[in-house]
């Protein structure tokens, strides 16, 4: 009861605060328009390119669709009684982070740098983030276009984690966790790697579309979460089969589709060939990884599975992400092949060995795939593809591997430690896990009062 009141108040505050701010802002006298409005009032500079803007806006829409895609990918893999609860995790994260990002997330991640560690609060509530380009980030599109493109990355990252604690997490705690994790883990790592002045950015480590920022941060946090929340009731003894694999395949397909925006959109421009190159290697790595995964299964278990094909595709998408703006098509085949085989092994050999219940393999796919991709970027990157990048080991520059390694390590440690503490604290205060009885009944009925399917 007490906890409920706390939760309720937190949620209330989450809404009321901005409301007050806005109300004031909105009522600012016309003669002295609010900061946001002022910024937007300035005549749009001529530098905006219509093709680049069209591309980035479309890419934003594509990346937005990935999170519902993930909802289906994950939702199909759980039991019927948890279908809605699992889908809800991803779906509501789109809402939660969209608001968090506008209010303070973007400012923390990309705002004026404070010591290489975090962005400042100058851009709270998007103040100063207008429609003219911000050449620091993207010279030919409105600043807000960059902001909202980045928003979709901030959205999907915590959603990836939810695979680790599927089928047993308390919804209210999940809600609070998401806001805190985005603020304390995602926003800082994002700043380190992509923010102007971020320390990993300055170091010269490469991460085109989010190998460290998105996949390692979420995958490693997922591992922490799986360890802390513990196994599902019946794990390894009962049959816990996916309730709707066509849904999972549809989710994987939407992820693949949306990922073109994720990776090729990260060129932040349509011209110049970089978006095209990223598009091509993304598709090639994904295809190869899907084949590699089912091939590994075929050899090891005698049958290629459909869930394997879908999982392999996602593993390939993950692994090519950091490399997508720096490598050519042949390298992407190698990266994809590695992703398929490594993630398959992580998921089907190592996980059972170690015995933790990363229910939908958020760590096995995103942690492992993201790490492989970040390292592989250090191997295969070439300035022939992207002159703003760097050469990797196989192009004569072993130093890049070192930098990639530092970036990977820093992300691993930071994500693991902060997530671990965060979840422990939440466990003591709000409780992470639903009761055993509720777990038997399922998330849908106990957390949401709904059934996924009726007649």
């Amino acid at each position, binding site marked *: 009861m007490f906890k409920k009141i706390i939760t309720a108040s937190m949620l209330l505050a989450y809404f009321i605060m901005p409301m007050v701010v806005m109300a004031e802002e909105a009522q600012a006298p016309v003669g002295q328009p609010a900061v946001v409005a002022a910024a937007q009032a300035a005549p749009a500079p001529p530098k905006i390119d219509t093709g680049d803007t069209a591309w980035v806006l479309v890419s934003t829409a594509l990346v937005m669709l990935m999170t519902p895609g993930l909802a289906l990918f994950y939702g199909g893999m759980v039991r019927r009684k948890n279908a809605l609860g699992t889908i809800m995790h991803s779906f509501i994260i789109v809402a939660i982070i969209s608001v968090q990002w506008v209010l303070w997330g973007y400012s923390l991640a990309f705002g004026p740098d404070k010591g290489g560690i975090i962005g400042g609060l100058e851009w709270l509530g998007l103040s100063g983030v207008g429609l003219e380009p911000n050449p620091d980030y993207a010279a030919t599109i409105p600043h807000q276009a960059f902001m909202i493109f980045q928003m979709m990355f901030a959205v999907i990252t915590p959603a990836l984690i939810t695979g680790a604690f599927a089928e047993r997490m308390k919804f209210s705690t999940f809600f609070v966790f998401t806001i805190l994790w985005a603020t304390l883990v995602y926003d800082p790592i994002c700043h380190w790697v992509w923010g102007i002045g971020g320390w990993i950015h300055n170091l010269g480590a490469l991460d085109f579309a989010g190998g460290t920022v998105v996949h390692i941060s979420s995958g490693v946090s997922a591992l922490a979460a799986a360890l802390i929340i513990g196994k599902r009731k019946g794990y390894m003894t009962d*049959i816990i*089969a*996916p309730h709707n694999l066509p849904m999972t395949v549809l989710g994987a397909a939407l992820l693949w589709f949306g990922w073109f925006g994720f990776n090729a959109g990260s060129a932040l421009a349509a011209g110049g060939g970089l978006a095209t190159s990223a598009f091509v290697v993304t598709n090639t790595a994904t295809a190869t990884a899907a084949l590699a995964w089912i091939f590994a*299964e075929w050899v*090891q*278990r005698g*049958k290629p*599975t459909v*869930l*394997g094909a879908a*999982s392999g595709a996602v593993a390939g998408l993950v692994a090519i992400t950091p490399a997508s703006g720096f490598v050519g098509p042949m390298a992407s085949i190698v990266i994809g092949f590695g992703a398929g085989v490594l993630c*398959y092994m992580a*998921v*089907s*050999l190592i996980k*059972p060995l170690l015995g933790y219940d990363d229910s939908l*393999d958020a760590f096995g796919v995103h942690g492992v795939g993201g790490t492989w991709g970040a390292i592989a970027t250090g191997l295969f990157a070439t300035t022939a593809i992207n002159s703003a990048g760097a050469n990797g080991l196989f192009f004569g520059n072993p130093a890049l591997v070192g930098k990639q390694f530092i970036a990977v390590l820093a992300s691993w440690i930071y994500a693991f430690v902060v997530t671990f503490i965060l979840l422990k604290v939440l466990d003591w205060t709000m409780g992470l896990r639903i009761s055993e009885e509720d777990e038997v009944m399922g998330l849908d009925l106990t957390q949401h009062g709904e059934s996924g399917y009726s007649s």
Partner: protein
Amino acid sequence: MKKIEAIIKPFKLDEVKKALNDIHIEGMTVTEVKGFGRQKGHTELYRGAEYSVDFLPKVKIEVVTSEDMAAKVVDAIQNAAKTGKIGDGKIFVSPVEETVRIRTGEKGKDAL
């Protein structure tokens, strides 16, 4: 009256229905069930985890009929449902004391 309950392989349902119609049994009730028995199940694979599923899909047919028809019904079902392979299923016969047709309130044989 007797109730004849048969657990059969799902793809045999149509043949059994026809066999029953041939002996003028024109009412039956069918339920999807899962059976466990001598017949081995199958294995399912999900991300390398292997599950052995030993409940197999079966269909249960229930026919209530008069005493004198019971044997005929059993025979008809047995012949139609038989493949000769393990898992063909069982037929159980049990007593029914009363039957009512809801629409008319008729009882006994007339209700069938």
